[in-house]
């Protein structure tokens, strides 16, 4: 208790210096947390993906569609339990700023593959019955204030014209990692319209393939692709996670830069904190010499310096962590639907505190080592 009182009093002996150091820590730790959350958000799709789902797409490019007829052959592949499909719709709701993902899917086969989308039975039936019906995630509905029965007009970019949909259901994610910013509409409606306009239909963007045993994902993927080898539309099948990571890799350079910046911020505050502790130790040289003369060992001096450094860094780190939450919320609002899942994870919070702890330890290491070895006589002379 005495030691803690002494640490507390020492820490705030130079209030302005300590407060400025803490402000630096708050900024650094919250910036570190925010950058990590942005990186996490980038990977959120991959993290939320299921190990029991494969994605089969054209081996040529994701933009090249596959024939719907492949569905039956996919169902026949050993190890496959379900097959569904989807097309990227890419419509604009009022303005481009309102971007959110929209997929044309086959409701009857798609929803059983995504049990993490929680939709009431009544809403599921209502959606399946209405070819112009859509379902959306709860966050998306909340963002635009949509309620069941609302008309939602989308201006098509891939499928031209204005499409008027009716909201028939609002799904909720089974957990916080599920994307609640999507809109799902009937693939059949889109397909009919395309066929009517161009005479060319029955093509899908990707197949979603449910498998019985995630451990056989690799083997099943090979079986599927072998089915369509040397055909006009060869396939590339991969796990949903690998498929999502493919999107992430497109912006890998940005992610690496963000991660580098987050570490640099921690290193900078480490230098600032180390300077504070070095100044502190230098100023108290005579006090440490006095303590040693009184019989306190080097370990006591080490405890004083590490304790003070950790006290400052952990208070700053905790304040930075707490500031990250409103910062992340404000950032998520500004970013809109760019990041389907944007939340400060428990691991990020733990890393923030760990960073603050490391800063505290590293900053005190050199002064503590030096002060533990000071010559008492030289230290006492310092005061005179």
């Amino acid at each position, binding site marked *: *208790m*005495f*030691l803690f*009182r*002494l640490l507390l*009093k*020492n820490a705030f*002996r130079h209030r302005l210096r300590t407060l400025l150091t803490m402000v630096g820590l708050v900024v650094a730790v919250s910036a570190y947390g925010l950058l990590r959350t942005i990186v996490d958000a980038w990977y959120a799709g991959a993290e939320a993906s299921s190990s029991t789902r494969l994605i089969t797409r054209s081996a040529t490019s994701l933009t090249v569609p596959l024939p719907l007829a492949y569905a039956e052959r996919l169902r026949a592949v050993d190890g496959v339990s379900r097959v569904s499909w989807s097309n990227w719709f890419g419509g604009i709701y009022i303005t481009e700023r309102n971007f959110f993902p929209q997929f044309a899917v086959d409701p009857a086969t798609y929803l059983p593959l995504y049990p993490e989308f929680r939709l009431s039975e009544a809403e599921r039936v209502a959606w399946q019955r209405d070819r112009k019906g859509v379902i959306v995630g709860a966050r998306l509905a909340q963002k635009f204030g949509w309620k069941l029965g609302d008309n939602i007009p989308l201006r098509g970019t891939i499928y031209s014209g204005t499409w008027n949909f009716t909201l028939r259901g609002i799904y909720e994610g089974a957990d916080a990692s599920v994307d609640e910013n999507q809109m799902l509409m009937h693939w059949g409606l889109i397909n009919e319209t395309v066929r009517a306009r161009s005479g060319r239909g029955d093509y899908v963007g990707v197949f979603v393939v449910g498998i019985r045993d995630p451990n056989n994902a690799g083997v099943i993927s090979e079986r599927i692709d072998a089915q369509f080898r040397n055909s006009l539309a060869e396939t590339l099948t991969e796990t949903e996670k690998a498929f999502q990571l493919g999107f992430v890799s497109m912006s890998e350079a940005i992610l690496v830069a963000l991660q580098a910046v987050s570490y640099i911020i921690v290193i900078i505050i480490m230098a600032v904190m180390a300077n504070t502790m070095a100044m502190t130790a230098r100023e108290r040289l*005579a*006090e440490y010499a*006095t*303590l*040693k*003369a*009184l*019989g*306190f*060992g080097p370990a006591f001096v080490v405890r004083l310096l590490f304790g003070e450094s950790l006290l400052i860094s952990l208070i700053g780190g905790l304040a930075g962590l707490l500031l990250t939450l409103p910062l992340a919320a404000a950032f998520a609002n500004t970013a809109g639907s760019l990041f389907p899942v944007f939340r400060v994870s428990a691991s990020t919070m733990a890393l923030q505190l760990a960073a603050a702890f490391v800063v505290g330890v590293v900053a005190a290491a050199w002064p503590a080592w030096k002060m533990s070895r000071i010559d*008492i*006589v030289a230290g*006492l002379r310092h*005061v*005179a």
Partner: protein
Amino acid sequence: MQESGPPLIRIRGLAKSYHRGEQDIAVLLDIDLDVMPGEFVALMGPSGSGKSTLLNLIAGIDKPSAGTIEIGGIDIATLGEGALADWRAANVGFIFQFYNLIPVLSAFENVELPLLLTGLSARQRRERVAQVLELVALSDRAEHLPSELSGGQQQRVAIARALVTDPTLIVADEPTGDLDRATGEEVLSLLEQLVDELGKTIVMVTHDPKAAARAGRMVHLEKGVLVDDLGP
């Protein structure tokens, strides 16, 4: 209040030199000195005479180059750093010219500090600190920070801190050097009281002949050699 029997401090052939580059600078040369329990000894001499070095060696905060320093029968020159720190905590009280109090701790907490190295409970520590603060007439200033006390009061807090563990030996380095004449007299009276009433042994370095005259014995050093020893 001098006692008969073996000396508390027994120094033989003590020498101390410092290395500067390839040069050896001798500070103390072949010092022999005995100090009896309950003696009040003043170490005097011009600057550079080695009196502070001798005090530091007696206090166990410096190591001799040669010779023995037996205090209470223990040759402290042979103790390792850890054992020496424990020995100082149990046997030596320090009084410095500039008081060397911890500025963020109250007078009470500064006095309590050396007791953290003992096995006393918090309650026992509080009682002991209250006793010594009363002895130095500072009970009413217990919660004051050093910056809220006068120089004389700060030195009395330092004396209380030196006394609180009930050491046999108190070393004082220019205890009145930073005080005005009247306050210095008060501090010296208090040191005399420690010797006369509590039987403490005090070794004090001073430049001031009047302060030295208050001690029972004056030891003069010049150029590292003990040149004069005026007993009681």
